[in-house]
């Protein structure tokens, strides 16, 4: 197992394309975390918001952010399969 992991690291070290993809995947993961955090914040704002117009705007924002996250998770799955 140890050898296998080391071989994988060596392959990544030698393959710049693979390295790049891994880096991108990590970035996407980080971004999705931030998005999740923002979605939670927005939901908290929505609960405390009383203005109807702002409430609708927040709802929209949450829906869009949710759809974006779903797209991001799908992209992450594809990137992980490579």
């Amino acid at each position, binding site marked *: 197992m140890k050898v296998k992991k080391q071989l994988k690291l060596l392959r990544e070290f030698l393959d710049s394309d693979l390295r790049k993809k891994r880096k991108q995947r990590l970035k996407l993961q980080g*971004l999705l975390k931030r998005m999740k955090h923002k979605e939670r914040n927005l939901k908290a704002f929505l609960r405390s918001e009383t203005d109807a117009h702002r409430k609708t*705007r927040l709802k929209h924002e949450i829906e869009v952010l949710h759809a*974006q996250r779903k797209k991001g998770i799908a992209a992450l799955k594809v990137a992980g399969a490579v």
Partner: protein
Amino acid sequence: MLNRILLPVIFMILGYGFWLSPEIKIVSAGVAIFLLGMLSLEKGFSAFSGGMLEKLLRRATGNKWQALGLGMLSTTIMQSSSLVSIIAISFLSAGLITLTAGIGIVFGANLGTTTGAWLVAGFGLKVNIASYAMPMLVFGTILLFQHSRNLKGLGYVLAGLGLLFLGIHYMKEGFEAIKETIDIARFAMSGYTGVLLFSLVGMFATVVMQSSHATLVLIITALAAQQVTYENALALAIGANVGTTVTAILGALGANASGKRLAAAHLIFNLVTGIVSVALIYQLVQIVDRISQFAGISDTNYTLKLAVFHTIFNLIGVVIMLPFVQPLVARLEKAIPEHVVEVDQPRYLSSASAAFADTAIEAVRNETLRVYDAGINIMVNGLGLRRIERGDALHLSVTRAAHHESGLKDIDAMYEQHVKTIYSAIIAFISETAFSRRDEQTASLQWLREANARIVESIKDTKHLQKNLRRYIDSSNQDMKDGYDTIRRHIASTIEVLNEMRGQQDGVMDMLGLDALKQATEDHRNSTTENVARLIGLRRISPEMGSSLLNDSRYAHDICMNMAKAAQTLFGASERELLLTARDVTLDDSELAELAEAVSTKNAEALKTFASGDKRES
């Protein structure tokens, strides 16, 4: 001001004249019909512009002799020096011909008008001109009802000629009849006092009728009926020639520097010709007599002699002025300087910034932000939005800008001044640098190029939107007014949100947040479509109004979408690498549409559940 006083005075004088004598009515109607004919003729020839006429005039750029010949020929054919002068001014303003060529055309046009005098004196008075007018009017009017542009143009020309002939006929008849009742000839004056006074009368008549040709025909017909002496008729013709420049000057007031220069050259030419002719009038009369004798014109044929005089004094003007065309051009260019509009120049694009990929991208981004700001500014001013200062945030309100002092600003002018040069420089800069970069950097530059194109697209859409907005901003139909206010309010709120996001500098999250704005734009368009259908159904707006509103809501949708997409590229530069990743999660147009659909279905279901719950409770 002048018009406010002049018009009632003319109306009163004419009214008094009509009451005094029915013959004056006939002469005045003749002048009116003649002028109507001139208008119809001009309209007819304008229909042919965009083709032959332009090609012909464009060739006049060769030298002043060509220009002179062309001005003369075109005025002879069209019998309207003002149409030729207007076309020359528009060509000059568009930079298609030089001022020298323009002056040549105007000088030629002056010579060309002399053919009108020859035609009326030699042909119009000798034959029953009205018999030619009738078929022309009939055929012309039939052609006016045709769909083809050329046939319609021909119709206007024929009807115009018919009206000109009919006008001449009525003037001739009127003066013949006046001769029987009133003797206007008793007001004749001899000597230089008479020459000066009648020159002024001729000038005034031309200013009022806005056509020296009409004045000349009036003079010739009055002379034929012996209602005016030969000497006074010559003075009237000189005055008419000077008076025609007033029309050109009035027309050039709204033109650019080139147009004003040409109008000034026109005035100088006609003034010099007029002064020389007045000073040498008695010598000219002798020359006319000799030429007439040589040409076999009888000594008492004053109308033809007037045509000879008219030709000679215009020819003298050309002979005197032609050698001075170049100095005149130089003087005019100095005296009427070009008003140079300060155009915004690029600030960050330089060969130094192009040296490294990162600096090149940053320079293009900063320059694109300037284009973005200018674009927002154009939208605010072009759509009648007013900035309200309230803290740091931007607030916009909808104004009735049509009545506002500043009005809806000219979008083309603002684009030329603030965007075009920078945009062109950005495109050139990207084209020169993009190919030598790594893939990611090339992609960044391509996105920036796309962002620029989107901003420019938004400006063009704003221009389209402004067209109908001018029409409906103060419409008597409240629904149309409200519809356009809603469109403007939506654009205003989009600009506010964009501004807010830019201020927060939350980088990548801002960029993602713009998708919500794009979705709100989709929703707005859908609700506008539903609202328009409802209003048409209720007959509160006509289908034509509805289609305007739908088209313009589409423009508004595209404006907001494009600006949001441009902002997505521009904002959050501090996290450029992450921005590339974020592009993988932003929603495209079809995904946004899907989401909008899903949300509206969900809302409809919620409404249904709510309604059924209400029923159960009741």
